[in-house]
């Protein structure tokens, strides 16, 4: 296996009494798209800035291309960064912006102009070299920022929540563009975001970060279908969280009851003991909805519910219902066939889910979750 492009070994960073990054170790393979996903304040920006070289870790080491980066300044690292606010230089033209890094390396002017024009064409901005930065739209500026970094052919490209400032349609469009750019250039991308949809769509591997630690590291599919901790289950994708107490554990299936008296079954993850406090998670699309009990798959526990509100979102429509006896709020994704398009608020329906597709964790002891 070739040397990973990025490797972190037990990296720690503390700020005034609180630990922003807590003994993180991970590696990123060459040519892959790695995302760090986490809520605000989890330490991902601190981690990125340590990789870029703007902050030095208190403990541990960061290796890029197999070489330790300890004590190496940001302008000497084979890393380039696309900043959250893009940081394009307003006092230079677009072409000069893209050629800036080349000029620092002493590349002669004619070659600089050629390379910068070629790169602009590759990102779809052919001939824009002479324009001023403020003449471009948000998406175009985004592409200039990426071009400016990629023209230097870095080992690693860091992206700090680059799509945050864009509107929805443009963001969706740029997600696809970024994925295609990464595949075309083959550069290793390290992408940080708090938007789990971006992380899932773009990445080969994702690290879910919370309070300075990785809760889980894996492919988007692993994170979605096999979350390792309650935090990951709740953070990645929509999920119904059912807190309760385990009544019985039998062959890997936990029978748990909520405070309001609703009893469900879910597959156990981790050490779940009878009588312990637990949290179960069921994905909205894992549950089946039916008007009559007979329509539900046989052999599964089923429940009755009253429709509380209909959340129409085109193909992502969902229904919020309350379980009949316990009044526990549950969300179910509506099938895309439009079969339940005529559902009314207040209607009684039946639903159920396969316990194997639900996960149940021991409830987190401290406030972490």
């Amino acid at each position, binding site marked *: 296996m070739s040397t990973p492009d990025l490797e972190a070994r037990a990296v720690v960073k503390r700020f005034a009494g609180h630990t922003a990054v807590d003994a993180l170790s991970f590696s990123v393979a060459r040519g892959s798209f790695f995302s760090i996903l986490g809520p605000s304040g989890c330490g991902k920006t601190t981690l990125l800035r340590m990789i*870029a070289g*703007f902050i030095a870790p208190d403990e541990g080491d960061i290796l890029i291309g197999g070489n330790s980066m300890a004590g190496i*300044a*940001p*302008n000497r690292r084979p*890393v*380039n*960064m696309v*900043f*959250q*606010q893009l*940081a394009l*230089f*307003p*006092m*230079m033209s677009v072409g000069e912006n893209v050629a*800036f*890094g080349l000029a*620092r*390396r002493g590349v002669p002017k004619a070659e600089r102009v050629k390379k910068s024009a070629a790169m602009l064409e590759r990102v779809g901005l052919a001939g824009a070299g002479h324009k001023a930065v403020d003449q471009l739209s948000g998406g175009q500026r985004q592409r200039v920022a990426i071009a*400016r*970094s990629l023209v*230097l052919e870095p080992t690693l490209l860091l992206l700090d929540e680059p799509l945050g400032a864009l509107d929805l349609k443009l963001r969706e469009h740029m997600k696809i563009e970024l994925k295609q750019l990464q595949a075309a250039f083959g550069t290793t991308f390290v992408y940080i975001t708090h938007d789990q949809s971006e992380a899932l769509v773009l990445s080969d591997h994702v690290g879910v970060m919370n309070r300075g630690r990785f809760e889980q590291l894996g492919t988007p599919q692993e994170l979605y279908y096999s979350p390792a901790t309650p935090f990951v289950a709740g953070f990645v994708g929509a999920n119904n969280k059912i807190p309760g107490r385990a009544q019985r554990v039998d062959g890997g299936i936990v029978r748990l009851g909520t405070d309001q008296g609703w009893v469900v079954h879910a597959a156990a993850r981790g050490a779940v003991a009878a009588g312990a406090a637990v949290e179960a998670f069921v994905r909205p699309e894992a549950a089946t909805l039916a008007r009559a009990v007979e329509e539900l798959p046989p052999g599964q526990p089923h429940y009755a519910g009253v429709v509380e509100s209909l959340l129409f979102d085109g193909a992502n429509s969902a229904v919020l219902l309350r379980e009949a006896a316990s009044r526990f709020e549950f969300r179910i994704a509506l099938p895309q066939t439009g079969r339940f398009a005529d559902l009314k608020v207040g209607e009684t329906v039946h639903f159920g889910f396969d316990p194997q597709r639900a996960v149940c964790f021991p409830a987190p002891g401290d406030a972490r979750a």
Partner: protein
Amino acid sequence: MLGLLLAPALVWLLALIILPHVDLALLSLRERVAPDEFKLSLAQYRTFFAEPLYWQIFVRTAVMSAISTLLTLLIAFPIAWTIAKLLRGRASALLLVVCLIPFWVSETVRTLGWMILLRESGVLPGLLVRLGLTDVPVELLYRDATILVGLVYTSLLFMVVPLVSSLESLDNSLIEAAYDLGAGGLTVLRKIVIPHAAPGITAGCIVVFMMTLGNYLTPNLLGGKNSQWFTEQIYNQFITRFNWEQGAAFGFLLLVLSTTMVWAGLRLTGQRFGEVMRRS
């Protein structure tokens, strides 16, 4: 309605600026031929160009003002950078107040303070003798360097303020991006910081230059008879020699010089006056 709102400004402009200038202009264009008898002539201006002393002092004043402006810029830039970028919150405000404190006392008192420090029987020469660097107290006043020190000290705040305002608007991520792309400290300064701060630098330089050129007190007190500052010549004509015509001519020449040098400076650095005033 608009006329009513503009009236105070117009009255001020007319009465306190335009009319006195017109009056002085007329004064400078006449020559006394007999008691109480004047005729229109350019004699006053001719005297200026004919007598070497006057235009040599003129040139000297311009050169020293330019040097003083440059020195003020070189000293004020690190201070402004520290206030705007390196310090946060209270420390930053504190340093700005420290720059401001000397201006709580009048220019006269400030300049006299320098005289106490630098005169032969003053603090600094005494210190030099105590340290063994000189045998007897040296007279540090009445030199060109002394005048420069006084001028820079007096102008510092007027350079720091526009610079701080300019530098504060510089986004830190631009500097980080430049480092990330391989630039060193000097390149960042040359290619990012100075172009961004250019309006502030220009505004500061214009203000400081104009103030220094027209400064009477500081060169006079610190330079004494050696000061050879053009404002002193104007004073002499008006007050010592009662030659108001000559004094008025000198005054206008100084105005022309000031305007020309500012215009030349703006052209040289590729700035435009309106742009500078708007962005600083």
